[in-house]
């Protein structure tokens, strides 16, 4: 089975829960453990929240959107690839942004853990960002197939 879906949300924090439910439903047909499912939900939640909080500075209007595309590829193992795309301000210093506990907004109680969680919970994380054009975060998780009978 190869499958994909795409959703587009207005960049608003209350929509992040909608994305989490959609992703969880989309991958729930795979033989996936609860831990893997939670890892993916959490990583996606971080990426979408980053787009809203940092890409768009919480500036809510109809032009500010986040697009989430998810792909399931069936090979030896199931690969789940998720792209989170915004057309916000972009990340100027990727190295700084991905440093543990670094946050550009400590006064808003951001823990600076977003990229650390994405990198810990997913197998691969790619950041493609251009200043004033936007950011695409690609998250990949490989799900090992269980042997039949297990």
């Amino acid at each position, binding site marked *: 089975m190869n499958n994909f879906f795409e959703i587009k949300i207005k960049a608003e924090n209350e929509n992040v829960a909608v994305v989490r439910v959609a992703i969880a439903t989309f991958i729930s047909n795979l033989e996936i453990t609860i831990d893997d499912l939670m890892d993916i*939900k959490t990583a996606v939640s971080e990426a979408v929240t980053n787009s809203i909080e940092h890409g768009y500075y919480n500036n809510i209007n109809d032009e500010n959107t986040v697009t989430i595309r998810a792909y399931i590829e069936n090979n030896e193992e199931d690969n789940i690839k998720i792209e989170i795309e915004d057309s916000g301000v972009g990340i100027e210093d990727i190295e700084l942004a991905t440093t543990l506990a670094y946050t550009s907004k400590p006064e808003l109680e951001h823990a*600076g*853990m977003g990229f650390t969680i994405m990198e810990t919970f997913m197998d691969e994380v790619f950041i493609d960002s251009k200043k004033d054009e936007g950011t695409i975060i690609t998250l990949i998780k490989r799900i090992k197939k269980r042997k039949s009978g297990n």
Partner: protein
Amino acid sequence: MRYKYDNGNLSIKLEEELDMNSCKVLRNIMDGYIMKYQPREVEIDLSKVQFMDSSGIGLLMGRYNLTKLIDANLVITNPSNSIKRILELSNIASKITLKYNEV
């Protein structure tokens, strides 16, 4: 969210998914109760929390800093496995008391 104050102990039971959306509201409410009661111990019960991302760490860190200011203890009880993993990624796990009660 529910809360109970009893003899120096402020117990807060969170029931919502802890993401940026809910945490922005919760931190004001929780700080309101903490400042009102000035407890010796703040207990945050996570047993009903089904999901938490790094916004939840920010929420707990912020409450940790406030309880330290008023010389109170912060105790986090009953996080699920996946929430525990997230707590352990941050340095908050070394600062707060984690407790598991029989449910």
